[in-house]
C-alpha cells in the first residue's frame, strides 16, 4: 500500500528542529471606505462597478446592464438571489420547485417586478443567453475580489459559462482585505465550492499579450446593493 509506505518514509526521515506555526499574520492594508477601494481595484482589472445602494435602484441598474449588452434576458443563478437582494419577481408559470431548476431567466420588461420563467435543469449549453446574474457572499476591498459560494444558489459553472456576468453583493458583506476574509472562512462547512473572482476571464499565454474573455466571461459587473 502506497499510503503506509509514504507515511512510514515521512515518519522515519527525522526532524531538523522544532518550528512552530506563526501565531499572527503579517499586516494587511485597511481602508476608510472599503466600497470605494473595491471600486478602484475592480475597475483597474477591467471590471464594471455599479452602485445600487439607493432604495429601488437595483431593477433600474439591471435593466441598464441588459441594454448595454444588447441582450433581452438574464440567466439567474436561482431564486435565492431574489430573496437575498429583495428583488420583486412574479413567476410566469406555476413553479413546482425553483430550488432544483438550474436557472431562471428574466425579461426586463417591467420596472416594478421581474417576470420569471424557469429553464430546464442542468442545461449548460446556453448559446442564446448573453448575461448571467448571481449573488456574492463577500467582497474584498484590498483586491477588488468578489466571492461566490455554492451554498447560496448552488451553481459552480454559471459565473464562467455566459459571456457577461453580473454579481450582486450586499454592502454589508464587504471585508477589508484577504487576511480578514480567509481569517473568518470555513470552507466546506456549508458548500462544496467557493470562487474568488476579480475581473473578467483573461489570458496572456500568447506573446504575453493580455486577452479578455478566454474560457470565462468577457465582462464582470458588480452591483452593490443596500
Amino acid at each position, binding site marked *: 500500500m502506497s499510503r503506509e509506505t509514504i507515511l512510514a518514509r*515521512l515518519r522515519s526521515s527525522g526532524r531538523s528542529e522544532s518550528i512552530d506555526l506563526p501565531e499572527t499574520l503579517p499586516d494587511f492594508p485597511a481602508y476608510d471606505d472599503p466600497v470605494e477601494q473595491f471600486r478602484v481595484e475592480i475597475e483597474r482589472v477591467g471590471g464594471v462597478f455599479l452602485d445600487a445602494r439607493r432604495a429601488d435602484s437595483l431593477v433600474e441598474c439591471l435593466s441598464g446592464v441588459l441594454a448595454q449588452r444588447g441582450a433581452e434576458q438574464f440567466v439567474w443563478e436561482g431564486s435565492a438571489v431574489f430573496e437575498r437582494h429583495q428583488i420583486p419577481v412574479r413567476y410566469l408559470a406555476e413553479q413546482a420547485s425553483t430550488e432544483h431548476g438550474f436557472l431562471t431567466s428574466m425579461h426586463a420588461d417591467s420596472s416594478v417586478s421581474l417576470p420569471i420563467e424557469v429553464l430546464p*435543469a442542468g442545461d449548460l449549453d446556453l448559446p442564446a443567453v448573453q448575461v448571467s446574474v448571481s449573488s456574492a457572499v463577500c467582497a474584498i476591498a484590498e483586491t477588488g475580489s468578489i466571492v461566490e459560494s455554492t451554498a447560496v444558489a448552488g451553481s459552480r459553472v454559471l459565473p464562467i459559462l455566459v459571456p457577461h456576468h453580473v454579481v450582486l453583493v450586499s454592502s454589508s458583506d464587504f471585508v477589508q482585505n484577504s*487576511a480578514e476574509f480567509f481569517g473568518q472562512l470555513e470552507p466546506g462547512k456549508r458548500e462544496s465550492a467557493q470562487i474568488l473572482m476579480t475581473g473578467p476571464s483573461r489570458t496572456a499565454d500568447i506573446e504575453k499579450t493580455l486577452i479578455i474573455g478566454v474560457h*470565462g466571461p468577457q465582462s464582470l459587473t458588480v452591483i452593490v446593493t443596500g
Partner: protein
Amino acid sequence: MIEIKPNIPGALANQQLQRNLKHTLTGSLESRNAAVAAVPNWQDLRNHARQVKLHTLERLDLYLERLETKIEANGGKVVWAEDTAAAVAAIVEIARSRSARKVVKSKSMLTEEIHLNPALEDAGLDVVETDLGEYIVQLCGEVPSHLVTPALHKSKEEVAELFIEKLGMTPTDDIGELTQAARRVLRQHFLSADVGISGVNFAVAETGTLVVVENEGNARLSTSVPRTHIAIMGIEKVIPRVSDLAVFLKLLIRSATGQKVTSYINLISGPRRAGEVDGPEEFYLILVDNGRTKVHSDLHFRQSLACIRCGICLNVCPVFQKIGGHAYGSVYQGPIGSVLTPQFLSESVAPQHPFASSLCGACKEICPVKIEIPDLLLELRQRVQEKTTKGRPFGEKAAMIVWAWMMTSPFRYKLASWLVTRIARRFISKGKPLLNFPPLSAWQKKRDLPPIPARSLKELYRARGGRK
C-alpha cells in the same frame, strides 16, 4: 541521462526563442517588481510563508493524514501513490470504471512529471489540455517550456499556423481571434468530457479544501462540469490552516504573474452536495510521492519542497533567460528545476543540472519562500562530482599545487604577476590571443580578452605619489 549541454547551441541560435524569452521574461520581471514594490511588508510575508512551509514539512505525515480525514468527511476519496506507476494506474482505473471517453485537464505540472497524457491516451482516452498555453503545447506535441507560461517559446505566427492546420481556422495573426477560436473548440470539449483533472496550488488540512489559482476559467470548468473530478498533488502541497492562504496567495500571484490577484481563485471542498445544482458527483484527490519522501529525508534539502511553483526564479535566472526551458530537458526547469530534477531522478540521471547556474544568487534573493537555491545547487555539484569522478584529474591537481606554491610567498606572487603581465602585454595588445591553444582556446572562442593596460594599478599608484 538528461543532458543540457548539447541543447545550448541550438537554443542560443534560435532567434525566435531569444526574442520571445527576452520579451516575456523582461515583462514578467517588471510587473512582478512593481507588484512587490507596492507591498511594504513583503519580507514579513516571505518569512511567514517560509516558517509555515518548514513547520508543515517537519510534520508532513500528520498534516497529510488530517487532510485525508477532512477530504473523506467532505465526501471525497483519497488515493496515495508512491510513484509514477501507482499514480497513473489509479487515474486510469477511475476513468475506466466510469467508462470515460474524454478527459479535460487544467494546468498541472505534476501530470507532466508522471507523463499522464500518453498513459491516458494508451488507455484509449481522449485527453484535452484546456489552459490556452498548455493547449497550444499539446497541439504541437511538445512539453511546456515554463512553469507558468507553458507556450512562452511560441510566437503568435506559430500559434496561428498551428490553429489553421489543426483547428481549420481562417488565417489570422490577431491574438484575440486565436484565443476565441480556442475558446469555441474547448467549450465543446468541456461540455462533453466525462472526467476533469486538475492540479492543486495549496491543500488546506484543517478543512480539506483544495485551492486552484487561474486566470482563464478553465480550471473552474474542468473541476465542475464533468461527472468526475480528479485532483492530483505532490504531498508537499499541504498547508495546515485556511488563514495562511492570505499570505501564500499574495506571494504566489504577485511573483508568478505580477497581478495583485488572479481572475479566479477556486476553493474546492469535495463533490457536489445536496441542494447544489451542478458540480461533479465524485471527487478524488491523488497524493503523489514520486521521489518527494527521498528529498524529505535529507534535512538540508527538505526546504526545496517548500516551492510554491511561482516560476519567478526562472524569469530572473541569467541562464534560463538565454537557454529557455526546453534546453533543460526536464519537466522542472530553471533554478528550482535544477534543484528538484537531480533529487527526484537521482544525480546520475541529471548530472548537468546543478551546473546550469552562474550561482549569482538572484533566485534566492527573489524566491517568495526563501529557498536557498544556490546553496543547494553547490551541494548537488559536490554530490555529482563525488559520484562521477574518482578524485580530481591530474592536470587540475598539478595546477593547484603550482598555484598554491606561487600564492603563498609575496616574492613569488610579485614575480609571477610581473612576468604574466609582460607576456600578456606583448601578445594580446597585438591582437594575437595569447591563450589560443587547447584547452584554453575553448574559453577564448566566445569571449574577447581585452588588452592588458600599459601600467598596472600598483604602478599607477606609485607614479602618482602614493605611499607604500
